[in-house]
């Protein structure tokens, strides 16, 4: 799914108009429409973050869909770049179920 398609899906799910979103983000409805149709590339970081806030999406997720790595994730990867590269290569093509399993650690509490 492209960035524009993802934005459109979120906007429709929330029943918001192009004008409503554009007003909150500080741009025009024509720009949002072009963005959704893929005629413009993903916007700058501040606009992506504003869209995330307006559409109730995790900003890190929207940044990744825009093709960028959020600073927080970059810092994590920089600690062990080789290992993260290997992990991602190993998980390439995995099913959602498998990724869910990898992502879900059993929490250890106090006992």
């Amino acid at each position: 799914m492209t960035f524009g398609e993802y934005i459109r899906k979120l906007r429709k799910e929330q029943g918001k108009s192009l004008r409503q979103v554009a007003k909150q983000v500080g741009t025009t409805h024509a720009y949002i429409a072009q963005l959704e149709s893929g005629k413009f590339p993903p916007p700058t970081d501040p606009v992506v973050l504003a869209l995330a806030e307006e559409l109730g999406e995790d900003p890190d997720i929207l940044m990744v869909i825009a093709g960028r790595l959020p600073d927080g994730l970059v810092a994590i990867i920089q600690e062990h770049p080789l290992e993260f590269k290997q992990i991602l290569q190993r998980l390439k093509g995995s099913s959602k179920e498998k990724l869910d399993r990898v992502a879900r650690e059993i929490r250890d509490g106090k006992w």
Partner: protein
Amino acid sequence: MALTLDSNQLVFSFPNIHEGAKLSIEFQRTLRIPDDGKTYPLPPGFGRFPVKHTDDYLDKLPTHWKEHGGVFLPIYQAEALWISFRAHTPTRHAHAYPFAVKIGTGKKSALTGKEWEKGLHKKDYCVVPEQPWLDGYVIEEGVIAQFVAVPLGQGLTVEEQLGGDGIGGIQIEVFPMKAECFERRWPKLPPPPPDQRLGIRCRSLGPAAAASNYSADSIRLCDEDSVGEMGLGAGGRMKQQVFEDPYGKDEWARNIDSTRRCFVHLANSMAWENITGEKPPETPVTAAAYERYNYPWYDYYSDDLQAMKGGKKFAGVKTVKDKAAEKGLKGVLPENQSVQPKNILVVPAKAIRNGSW
């Protein structure tokens, strides 16, 4: 290191220690052997208990379960279980990656009866893959008392008899072998051809062999608004060696970044449905019905490994049957008729130590 849940198995991974350091632990449903003073062979497994993350049901579980974290599984009163350990074999190695595993019930060691303590202590852990299964409390050399579920608060659990607070559940802590020790003992080799690998006779028959057999009124129901917390008591005697560490304590990675632990809560099966919305497994077959079908029992032994002598603390622990009688509790251990197992399959430990899982 990571601990995840995969197809109702706990999967402990230690990529920080060795890329192949991975251990799966599962809880097998089984029949309860009679608590009649006789010593029985190993019963079969009827498949894994379903297991869930406590974090997925925090609004329906007691506060202390939230604090403990971990997972939970459903178990009927008087139902038995055994714990299965499976160490994975790293690529291009001819031996499964070894682990030291501590098992506690209600924060008392199932091997020594002593209070649960951080770290590894003398004879309070078993070693996998040498130890493939644990069915109960190590009460004598080569003899265990089967794990049997009983409600907390009635004084029937082993932990309560040993002065515990009634915390319930099963506690697990896993320590992988140090990578340098593993590589020194079993250096990388070309993989053996598949036809030279020895298989292990599987002890689990799967759920098909576990036809429901307890009468409905023999299963005590818990209060509907309770999770029906269960603990483990000492059931019938069973022949099972629990082996001492053949490698030595210094072989295990023991710093805080190298170990992983898990609290496994036991919920009454009827409460399980209220919590998860899913039906619990059928009640398991009785020993008498199982024997009528001439299904197999198992005898697993090793002449080479030293078996533990049994925890002295267990000397004063009574079985569920005896403790219930002492307290005047009726119906705690239904369908306890003696049986005479005939079809016993012998599984030498060497088949596992040399083999592949």
